[in-house]
């Protein structure tokens, strides 16, 4: 039921997104869109010694995709970049409290994770192109 989805926490993050905006001269800048609905998320990261020092997201879309992005930035901020590898889709869905979304809306909830993983892969591959084989499947979310 939608009452379970649109709880106060989601609506709060939607109306007052955390870490929204751009970083000047980010170490990572990456974006993607959801072909389903046109939702767009871009993420900027500042990385120091493999630690996520700053993270900002921008984009437009539904409450679920925007709230999920907002919560995800809180989740990884000041964590090692490699933790992104270990975040599963279930982690994100539990974090935002939406474990029974339908397949279409799941894509909204996971768009920001997809973008974040893409960013991490791009960062490592740019640094060391030979890591592409190992990294190839790391950006998979679904």
């Amino acid at each position, binding site marked *: 039921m939608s009452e379970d989805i*649109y709880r106060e926490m989601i*609506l709060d993050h939607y109306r007052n997104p955390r870490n929204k905006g751009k970083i000047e001269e980010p170490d990572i800048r990456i974006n993607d869109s959801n072909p389903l609905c046109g939702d767009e998320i871009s993420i900027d990261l500042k990385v120091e010694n493999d630690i996520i020092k700053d993270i900002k997201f921008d984009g437009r*879309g539904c*409450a679920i995709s925007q709230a999920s992005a907002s919560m995800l930035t809180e989740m990884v901020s000041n964590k090692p970049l490699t933790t992104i590898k270990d975040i599963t889709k279930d982690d994100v869905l539990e974090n935002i409290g939406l474990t029974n979304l339908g397949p279409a*809306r799941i894509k909204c909830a996971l768009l920001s994770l997809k973008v974040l993983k893409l960013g991490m892969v791009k960062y490592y591959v740019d640094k060391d192109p030979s890591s592409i084989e190992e990294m190839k499947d790391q950006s998979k979310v679904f």
Partner: protein
Amino acid sequence: MQALLDVYKIRQDFPILNRRLNDGKRLVYLDNAATTQKPNEVIDSISRYYKEYNSNIHRAVYQIAEEATEEYENTREKIRKFINARYPEEIIFTRNTTESINLVAYSWGYSNIKKGNKIVLTEYEHHSNIVPWQTLCHNKGARVKYLEVDADGYLKLEDLYDLISQKDDGKTKIISLSEMSNVLGTIFPAKEIIKIAHEKDIPVLLDGAQSVPHMKTDVQQSGCDFLAFSAHKMLGPTGVGVLYVRKEILEQMKPFILGGDMIKEVHKENTIFNDLPYRFEGGTPNIADVIGFSAAIDYLNRIGMDNVREHELEMTSYLLERIKGLKSVVIYGPKKAKDRGGLVSFNMDGIHPHDCATILNDFGVAIRSGHHCAQVLMEKLDIVASSRASLYIYNTKEEIDILIDALNHARRIFNT
């Protein structure tokens, strides 16, 4: 009160309308522009085909194959009549509108579009009527030009005059446009546009995905050179599209999908292609669903396309009026119901269409939210997405009332 057609009787023919959803709610299906539901007749005719005379057509001489061939070709003739084409061989079966347009872009387009040429579309086209042309132009060094839609969802015909006038120098080689917008709902004056184009000898493709299911179509009257539409949007099965091409043009076109059934003779070094229209239907066709489509056409003929249109007009007026009554709502497209097909797109301030659709689902209401495969138009309207409710012969005012209740509930949840 349904004067024109007996909606309540019609509804009994559609088994899905009795479907109970997870929470016991009855389905309120308002996504007919995406695909329509199917009456028992259509479903049964597909089953009957498989249970009684399934076989590969055209080539075999045994009884069930002859039965199947006959039913398949009867459908072609039925469609000829439905759109008033001159010859059955002007009717080609494809998978959907998208493939129909691609067939024209690949077969007609690659032979006729040269460097420096122009292809005219409109801003409100469905992606299926943009991407094939964009790609063709990209490969050929040609350009796509878009006719603009104004704030009320209309085209200015003077723009068309300008675009293809003297200074165009005969560079425009084809105009391809939808007869009805799947977002704005506008019905465009196809006949006038075709007249203007033909004065300059420019052929016109009509994307009839939204118009053919909802109003009478007459290709001889409109004069269109190509017409594309999908069975699944007019009570028919998925997997069947139609491409009508005027015979004089079709005779000049190269085959597209190459292989079995579309040839007369194959030798090691060359091939002689089959007669029209088989030349354009390579491989085993979607026999069962073409035959199923036949039952859909029968159903629509029995109701009468003028009655379909009248019913939708009445329902659209009501839908427009009720949506207008909502708080902070923006409606796209013409204000007058009579300039519209049976759909209304809108946005409620502060609620993303996607969230809106999710909340509506709790009420059993199925509407579409998103860009509706019309991102060029979305850019023009400066929105990412919209909600769209679209109607067909089985929809009632009661269903529209449920939609409005649900929209009000969404408003309460988002507290805006």
